């Protein structure tokens, strides 16, 4: 981590916002580092879980919402399980992801693009469609499919459906309407879907 000027960089309302949105008492973190010790994704983090918690306490909004870690987190809840102060650290990470997205700050765009591709297939089919997710993800990320080595096996074992299975009995349409309403509401409320 770089040296931070605490006088200039602090946003005192940040901890309140994070606490009320996540329902977690971040102030009670005493920096024992248990969350970080058990975090399986820590090796890919730029700020470790306990550093993120400290950053929230200190109001280092800019730095925390810009952390790659938010997007590398696997939501495995090991941190929450092991926190001696019963802070649901995984829930805090999730809240920070939501806040970062709303502010248009996505430090690892490819993870976000993957998620959006997944949700697109759900929106149109009502259910996940794996090949569709991959195609959309390739388009979004301009990355040639990184898993070409898996394709022969996946296809031979019929692991991938070649045509989407939409949710029957009006399910696909109902999901389309849910996503539509969600997007409209985001627009109304001025947040990024």
């Amino acid at each position, binding site marked *: 981590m770089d040296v931070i000027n605490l006088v200039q960089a602090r946003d005192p309302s940040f901890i309140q916002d994070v606490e009320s949105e996540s329902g977690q008492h971040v102030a009670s973190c005493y920096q024992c580092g248990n969350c970080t010790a058990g975090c*399986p*994704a820590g*090796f*890919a983090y730029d700020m470790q879980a306990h550093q993120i918690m400290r950053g929230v306490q200190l109001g280092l909004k800019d730095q925390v919402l810009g952390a790659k870690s938010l997007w*590398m987190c*696997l*939501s*495995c*809840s*090991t941190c*929450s*399980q092991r926190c001696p102060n019963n802070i649901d650290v*995984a829930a805090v990470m*999730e809240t920070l*992801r*939501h806040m970062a*997205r709303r502010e248009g700050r996505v430090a*690892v765009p*490819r*993870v976000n*693009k*993957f*998620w*959006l591709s*997944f*949700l697109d297939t*759900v929106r149109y089919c*009502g*259910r*996940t469609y794996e090949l569709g*997710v*991959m195609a959309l*993800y390739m388009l979004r*990320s301009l990355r040639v499919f*990184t*898993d070409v*080595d*898996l394709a022969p*096996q*996946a296809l031979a074992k*019929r*692991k*991938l*459906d070649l045509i989407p*299975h939409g*949710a*029957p*009995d*009006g*399910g*696909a349409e*109902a*999901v389309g*309407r*849910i*996503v539509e*309403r*969600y997007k409209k*509401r985001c627009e109304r409320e001025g947040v990024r*879907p």
Partner: protein
Amino acid sequence: MKFAYYPGCSSTGTSADYEKSTRAVCRALGVQLEDIPGWNCCGSTPAHAVDTELSAALCARNLDIAARLGAEKLLTPCPSCLSNLRHAAHRMEDPAFRSRVNELLDEPCAETFPQTYSVMQALGDVFDTDLIAQRAGQKLKGLKLAPYYGCLMSRPAEIMRFGDPENPTLMENLLAACGAEVLDFPLKTDCCGASHGIPERSVTARLSGRILQMAQTMNADALVVACPLCQMNLDLRQRQAAKAAGTEFNIPVLYFTQVMGLAFGLSPRELGFEKLCVSPQPLLDKLAAARRTDASDRKVNS
């Protein structure tokens, strides 16, 4: 016995073998699964990572259908679906949250939802292990199995209520009742790399690699799993994990229902074994050899 059933999206593709073996084992135990009509995707990780209310709305539609069927319990084989359905039901207890979610639905959803359980939990609750042991005519003697739950099945503890969140033992009990030798697998609730397989392949390869390495060190004949995503990361992506670790793995990754089905005397075909990427043949051969020795021992003794 009858339960409402939510198969989850992977049931038609990547985990069709889990689906097939779940239904086969339930049939063998006299458990009826009634699919909830027109079910939709629970939203999985992407929905909750993007927005909690959107995720809850996708789940609530399914819970609502199950409630309208009059179901008391809703089962799903997938821990990720289970986690999302349970989180949604839990959050919907807050009236403000509920009304935000209802705004997204065609009409407000039912006031109360059926309780949601994993298939594994339901089998463990309904049948005591003696009964499973009785039903398991074809004992799995000689098989050394490493039970692996993954990270979602037991955490967060208050929501998942699955015994000790870092040391669940239900799968061990079920596998032992089937006569297998069950390893005390230290990484049983570690994360496999989850949905980062596509965008952040190196993370998944490294985490799955650790699990496979441990299973190999412990001489497991197979890893036994309960989650479609874990199964895919450990089986279909096994070569990627081996490459990242600079080694080779050859560890079959079976669903617990496939293992139970074998013990119940069902054929590998009925259990979808042909879908497995890493061949389970060595394990099947070992089992057949153990059964032959057993049979000839019995002849000698009689």
